């Protein structure tokens, strides 16, 4: 409180506003008489100022809640859009039974799988994993879907499909992003799996004839890593003749890198053991056994990374 030398106002009182001990603003009151503010009046003003502080803080919290709500709503929409990008019904052919599991760790994720019936005999299957997490990965995942559906219709040899996908992604991805894929064409006439691994986790294969499980560890390089012609020499395509009872397990590293509370990874060996044990079951039961095996190992159903699993079994 002070006296003023003003032609009209003679006294002033200034009261600071604090919210959680942080200074926000001051309220100044003026009066046209000297010593215009009594002790009682200042007490009343203080009460009003305290009320004002609470109102300002409430308003701020309310605005924050509205903005948060809007973000949540946007993420919900993104989640719905991405769920729409996952195939609703999988194509298959007369030889195969296919069962899938896919779950994102956050609202949206970077895992991708899809199928396409190239002809009555030929079925294309892709599983992909975008580097990074969350929304940035989700954008790239949708690009991968666009590229898959554009190229798969051309019925290209696998080698050309991989090279064209790499060219296209080289134009689309930011400098530190890449996508790994496992790409298969299953031919029910020739009874073959033809495949290529572009930096993706090696596919697990069960041979019914040999009653043996192995990883298909062919060479390859993730898409978008080499963004020029040099990439061609890193593409490898292989072929397996399949027979009844054979199984392919395609997956993303969310499974093998799933951790238990002791920080140990589920790992490749456990996945292999599980398939060895469950190879005689049908595709759906194998999928459920692997998903359950992973959850049991982690001790919870909360996953830290996106998880995708496809079981393809020859009838």
């Amino acid at each position: 409180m002070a006296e003023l030398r003003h032609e009209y106002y003679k006294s002033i009182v200034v009261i600071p506003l604090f919210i959680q001990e942080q200074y926000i603003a001051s309220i100044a009151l003026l009066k046209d008489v000297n010593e215009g503010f009594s002790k009682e009046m200042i007490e009343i003003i203080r009460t009003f100022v305290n009320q004002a502080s609470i109102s300002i803080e409430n308003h701020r919290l309310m605005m924050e809640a509205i903005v948060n709500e809007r973000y949540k709503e946007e993420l919900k929409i993104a989640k719905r859009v991405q769920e729409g990008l996952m195939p609703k019904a999988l194509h298959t052919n007369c030889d195969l039974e296919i069962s899938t599991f896919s779950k994102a760790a956050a609202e949206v994720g970077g895992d991708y799988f899809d199928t396409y019936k190239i002809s009555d005999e030929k079925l294309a299957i892709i599983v992909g994993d975008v580097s990074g997490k969350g929304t940035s990965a989700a954008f790239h995942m949708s690009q991968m879907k666009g590229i898959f559906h554009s190229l798969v219709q051309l019925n290209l040899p696998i080698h050309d499909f991989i090279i064209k996908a790499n060219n296209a992604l080289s134009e689309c991805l930011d400098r530190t992003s890449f996508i790994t894929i496992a790409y298969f064409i299953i031919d029910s006439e020739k009874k073959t799996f033809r495949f290529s691994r572009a930096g993706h986790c090696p596919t697990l294969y069960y041979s019914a004839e040999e009653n043996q499980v192995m990883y298909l560890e062919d060479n390859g390089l993730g898409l978008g890593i080499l963004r020029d012609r040099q990439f061609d020499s890193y593409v490898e395509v292989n072929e397996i003749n399949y027979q009844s009872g054979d199984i392919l397990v395609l997956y993303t590293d969310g499974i093998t890198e799933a951790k238990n509370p002791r920080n140990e990874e589920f790992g490749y060996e456990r996945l292999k053991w599980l398939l060895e044990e469950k190879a005689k079951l049908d595709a759906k039961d194998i999928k459920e056994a692997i998903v359950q095996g992973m959850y049991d190992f982690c001790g919870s159903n909360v996953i830290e990374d996106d998880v995708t699993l496809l079981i393809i079994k020859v009838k």
Partner: protein
Amino acid sequence: MVEIKNHLENDIFTIFVIGEVDASSSIYLDESISEATKKHKKILVNCQQLEYISSAGLGVFMSYINDMEDSGITLVIFGLSDKVKHVFQILGLDQLLKITKSEDEAKKMVNGI
């Protein structure tokens, strides 16, 4: 979390990557390699204490492959645990990056011996 330390000895610049490199901490790795490539031609990345690297972290190493070829920089990664090395191998990065076991081998490699 990741901790990154640097050490310059003669003309060899060493980056120590300690802990876990995930999506959020990969930016620190990116910054330190970016800084190093501006000033030094011989760079070692000591990964003896690197426990985990996510795809985002691998993306950082990947992004310098072309730059380094163009500007005559040699970057050698050494001391990877078997588990972390396997992650590089699956992606195919071991075919493009210089990776070796020990610091001595890495020094020889960076000096072109």
